[in-house]
Structures are given as structure tokens and as C-alpha cells.
């Protein structure tokens, strides 16, 4: 039936299909990799998470800087107004 997965060749393109509610899954072993051309899929995905974490950290640093900046601005305005 329609729900069976297919590997098709469409004018030389290689296409992997599944039915409407079915998944395509990539499962790696402890040292097995899924490589897409030269890229390791798992590494790229761990980079996405690393990016996410670093963005969080960066935002914290910016928060601190904004606080400091606000305080200094305040002090400066007092000094200037002396």
C-alpha cells in the first residue's frame, strides 16, 4: 500500500519517501556516523545546541554589561551636573 516506504529514482535523483504519518529515522551506533557529503550529521546537530547555549551565555554577559553601563551613565550624569 501507499504506506510502505520507498526508495525512488526520479530522473537520476535519489528520493526516500514514507507514507503520510511515517518517519524517516537516522540511528547511529556508538561510533557509527551519518555523513552527508563531508559533514557528520551528529556533529552539526551538536553544534546547533552549542550555539544555542553560547547565545544564552552571551545574553547573560550583555545583561551584566547593560547594568554596569546604566550605573556608569547615572554616575557620569551626576558628575557632569556638579
Amino acid at each position: 500500500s501507499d504506506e510502505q516506504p520507498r526508495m525512488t529514482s526520479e530522473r537520476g535523483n535519489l528520493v526516500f519517501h514514507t507514507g503520510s504519518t511515517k518517519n524517516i529515522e537516522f540511528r547511529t551506533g556508538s561510533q557509527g556516523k551519518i555523513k552527508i557529503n563531508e559533514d557528520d550529521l551528529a556533529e552539526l546537530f551538536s553544534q546547533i545546541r552549542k550555539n544555542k547555549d553560547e547565545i544564552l551565555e552571551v545574553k547573560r554577559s550583555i545583561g551584566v554589561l547593560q547594568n554596569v553601563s546604566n550605573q556608569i551613565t547615572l554616575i557620569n550624569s551626576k558628575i557632569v551636573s556638579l
Partner: protein
Amino acid sequence: VYKQWIPNTNFENASNWDKDRIPCANDVVLFKSNQEISVFVQSTHSLTDMYLPLNGEFIMAPGAGFAAFDGSWHPGCDTGSAVSFTDAEKYKWHDPALWHAATSLEDLDQRKYIFAVDEERVPCQYDDVIFQPETSFRVNIDSSERMIHLRSISIMGQKFTSDAALAEYMQRSSAKLQFHGNGTFQVTNARCPDKSGCECGNAGEHRQICAALLGDSGTRCPVLVCKDPFQPVGHCCEICGATISLEYTPGFDMRQYQNRILHTFLSLPKYAGVQMAISKVRKPQTSRNSVPLIQIVLMDDKMGSQTGTNAEQLAEDIMRDIAEHGDSFGIVTGTVQVATGSNSSGQ
């Protein structure tokens, strides 16, 4: 009648490979680049190298797939070689040899197939056509009449009884790999409305049907041992045996009469080797204003001078029955034609 397509293009069908075996793990598996093919895969295969066609599909049953070859030894696979998927373009819808016919799905399952003249071995207008589930196939539906009329068609477990649903299916890429040629299907979901039977409707395809059966290189009918063999209506070659042609009244009931012959005569042990085909046909030579008649074709498994004698006996039994009870079945007259080995050139 149910008509089931016989060939398949499954990966596991040894006859689909040029080495007459399923490829081994160390073989190079070749599909031609221009081979348009749908291939059903039923199990997991290890492979070294497989060239896929530019347009094709591999449908994977649960648990089926492809794995890398680990270099281990497989029984019967000592040396790797090139194994090619054979050409599937040659299978024609109109080839009588590529269909099984049965009067019920159970009979199909139990391989109780019916005998029919060649035209009627190909699906008729009130037939249900079945492409078995879990099989892939490729069929040439070139048709001189362009339109192929059917009651229904089942493809990979999906039954189509309306033109709209079938037309939608035929647009899919799978359908384009399964069917090629200029024919179009029309499915009516209708049974034969006439209890005296309906013509098959394949008379217009007679030439194509016989060409597919006998090969394009002209007539190659089997050599017959009987004298004056004859050609039943709808058949491609002359036969030895007997035919009975019946003129009938509107009261004639095909199913009822067929059952009578089956139960009264064909079930007798002495007729175990006789095959019967019964259908409504129209004689081609009297095409204008011709009336349909009921044709009964009888062939037996006797050899040499005995060829056809069993069929002849049965024909005589049937004619006697008609003389006694024909009126009650709605039969006006019957004419018999016989060709047996015993009347061959007076031997």
C-alpha cells in the same frame, strides 16, 4: 470472473534476474539506466554495489531493506559477478498466457483456474482484475481500442471500482512505472446484467491478443494430430476436440446451465481429463446482423489417435441432454463440430 496478473517484478523473484537467482552480497547488481521499473522488496539484502535506474522505485515491505556487505562468506556466493534485472517491458496486458482466471477469489487462492478461449483469458469487460498485493509489476497496456473496460482493478491491495479513484491513482509515479502504453482503463463496478451471459468484449483486440500469445513473428500454433481441426470463436489456434454452438431464448441462464454441465457430466470420473470453456460469443465471419450464440469448447488430454475422443463423447452426452431437456434451459438448437485423432486420415 477474476483475472490475476501472473508476472511480477519483485526483487526476490529469481526469474527477474539474468542469472536466474537473487543477487548475492558480493555481486554487482545492475539495473539499466533507462529501465523504468517498480520493484517490491520483501527482505533485507546485503550488497556490494547496486546501480539504480534513472527512473524507478523500490517499495519496501516491513523488514525489507538493503545493508552493506560485511565481507563474510555466504553459501552459494563464492565469486561475485554482475547480475542484471531482466527486461520487464515485454509483458503485455493482452497476452493470454500472463493471466490466471477463476470464478472466485478462493478458487484463485487454491489455484483452481478456469479454461477459456484465448480472447477470454485476457480480462473481459465484467471481470475483476487483480494484481497481487505485495508484488510489483510492469505491464504494457497498449490497446488498439484504446479503452480497456473492466468491472474493477486491484493494485497492491487497493481495489478501484470508480474511474475517478483509478484516474487519480494512474497519475502517481508508481502507476507510471507499473503501466505503460496508450490504453486507458474504465472501471464500472458493474456485473453482467444479462443472465444469459455477456460477451467478453475483446473481439476487437483479437489480432493483438493472438500476436502476444504466439509471438510477433507470425503464427506458431502447435501442430495438431487430428484431422480437420477447427478454430473456436475467440481462440487463436485451431484445436482438436469439440465445440457446441447453441442458439438460445431470452430464458437461457448461463450460470444455471454451466452448473448443470459441471455437475451432470464434467464431474464424472470418465471426463476428468476434459476442459470446458463456455461463453457468449459472436461469429466474426457473419459480423453484420450476427446474433450472439453460446459456445462450449471441449478439449481433452488424450494423445495420438485418442486425441479429442473424450471431448467428443462429452459433446454427444450434452447434445442428448439438450434433445431431452433443451426447452427447459432455453436452448433452441445446438450444433456440434468435432475433430479427433481417430478420424485423422483414416489411420
